[in-house]
C-alpha cells in the first residue's frame, strides 16, 4: 500500500479520531508543521508594521500551523474537512476560529476580506476524486475562484504542497492561473530528496513587481528555474548521486589502514574465531619503495 495518505481514503475519513490524535502527538510532525508554516508566512511577505492581519489557514487540521500564525500575532480562520481534527484543535484551545468546510466546494467567505492565506500539505487532496460527484478540475476551479474572491487586492497566498507527479503540479498551477492569480512555484532545497519542499506562491491581481515569485532556499549558484526543477523525477536522482562528497572521501583516507586500526580488526576477527595471522613488528608497516 502506498504511504501517501491521499491514496488511502478521503480526508474526512482518513483523519479519524485515532489518526488525528496520532498526527498531533508526534513531535516530529509538530516540528515539521511549525517550520513549514513559518516559511509559508515568510513567503506571504506581509508588511512588517506590527498590525495583526486576518489570515486564512486552509486545511488547518488540529491547528498546528495556526499556532505559528498566533505566535506572530495574527488572527486566523482555520478551515478543515475533518471533524476529528477540529475536535483536537478545540482541545488544544487554538486561538483561531475554526470552520468545518470542504475547500473543493468553494470557500464560504465574503469578498475581499482576507489579508493572506496559507495552507500546509493540503491542496494536493483536491487532485483526488473521492466521491462519484468529485471532479478534480471543477473542485480546484471552485477553490481557487472563491479564494480569489475572498482575498483582498494584492494579498498573497502561500501553499505548501506535495504533488504526486508533474501532472498534479501542472493541474494545480493552471487552475490557479485560470482563476486570475499571478505567481508560481518556489522550491526549497531542490537537490535534497528529504528537505525538498514545494510552495505555490500566488498573488491576487495582475502580475507586477510585487507579485514576482521569491527565490527558494538552498538553491546553488547555477540557474534553477521552475521549468528545470519541475522536470523528471529521474533527473533529480541523477543529480543527487553525481554530487561530490569530499567529506566522506576525507573520512576514508583519514581512517587509513593504520597499525591501530589493523590490530583492532584482527582482534575482532579472532573473537569471531577466524584464522588471523599473529601480530608482529611487521604488522601494518609500510613496504619499502624498492619492493
Amino acid at each position, binding site marked *: 500500500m502506498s504511504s501517501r495518505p491521499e491514496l488511502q481514503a478521503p480526508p474526512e475519513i482518513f483523519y479519524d479520531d485515532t489518526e488525528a490524535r496520532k498526527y498531533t502527538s508526534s513531535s516530529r510532525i509538530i516540528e515539521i508543521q511549525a517550520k513549514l508554516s513559518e516559511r509559508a508566512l515568510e513567503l506571504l511577505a506581509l508588511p512588517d508594521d506590527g498590525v495583526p492581519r486576518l489570515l486564512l489557514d486552509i486545511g488547518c487540521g488540529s491547528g498546528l500551523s495556526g499556532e505559528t500564525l498566533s505566535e506572530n500575532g495574527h488572527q486566523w480562520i482555520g478551515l478543515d474537512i475533518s471533524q476529528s481534527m477540529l475536535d483536537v484543535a*478545540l482541545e488544544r484551545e487554538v486561538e483561531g476560529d475554526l*470552520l468545518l468546510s470542504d475547500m473543493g466546494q468553494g470557500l464560504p467567505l465574503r469578498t475581499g476580506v482576507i489579508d493572506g492565506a496559507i495552507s500546509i500539505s493540503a491542496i494536493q487532496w483536491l487532485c483526488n476524486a473521492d466521491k462519484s460527484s468529485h471532479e478534480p478540475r471543477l473542485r480546484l476551479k471552485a477553490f481557487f475562484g472563491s479564494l480569489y474572491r475572498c482575498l483582498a487586492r494584492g494579498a498573497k497566498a502561500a501553499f505548501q504542497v506535495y504533488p504526486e507527479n508533474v501532472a498534479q503540479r501542472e493541474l494545480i498551477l493552471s487552475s490557479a492561473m485560470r482563476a486570475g492569480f499571478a505567481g508560481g512555484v518556489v522550491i526549497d532545497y531542490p537537490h535534497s530528496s528529504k528537505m525538498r519542499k514545494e510552495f505555490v506562491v500566488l498573488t491576487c491581481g495582475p502580475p507586477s513587481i510585487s507579485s514576482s515569485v521569491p527565490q527558494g532556499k538552498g538553491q546553488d549558484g547555477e540557474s534553477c528555474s521552475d521549468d528545470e526543477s519541475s522536470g523528471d523525477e529521474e533527473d533529480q536522482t541523477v543529480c543527487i548521486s553525481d554530487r561530490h562528497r569530499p567529506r566522506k572521501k576525507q573520512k576514508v583516507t583519514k581512517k587509513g589502514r593504520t597499525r591501530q586500526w589493523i590490530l583492532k580488526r584482527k582482534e575482532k576477527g579472532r573473537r569471531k574465531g577466524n584464522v588471523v595471522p599473529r601480530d608482529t613488528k611487521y604488522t601494518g608497516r609500510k613496504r619499502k619503495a624498492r619492493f
Partner: protein
Amino acid sequence: MRLLIHNMLSSNIKGVINGFPLRIEVDKVEEKQVDFDAAFLRKMFHKIEWKALLDAALTLGYAELPEEAPDSSVLESDEFLQKFHHALLELDLEEGALVCPETGRKFPVTKGIPNMLLHEDEV
C-alpha cells in the same frame, strides 16, 4: 464562532446570489476574554459590514453598539473600541445555527464550529 467570523461568512450554495449575512439562531452563547488590540480593531473596522454586526450582536443579546454605521472618527474613542472589541471578538456562539438568507438552509454550529459542508446537490 465569534462575530468577526460571522461577518466574513457567506453562504456559497450554488445559485445563491447574496448569501450574506447569515441569520443566527441561538441556542447557547458564551463570552470569552480576549486580549484587546486596538491596531487590529482599527484595521478590521473598514472591512466590517456594520449592519450585519449590529444585528448579530443584538441576536446574541448585546445592545451597546451604536445603531448607525459610525464613521472612522470614532476609532479614536477608547469607549467605542472597547464595545467594538467585545462585540467582535468576545461574544461567541457556542451552539445554534446559521441560516442562509436566500434558501433558508441551516448550517448547524456545534461546539463553536459552524458546519459549512454542502450537500452534493448544492455544489
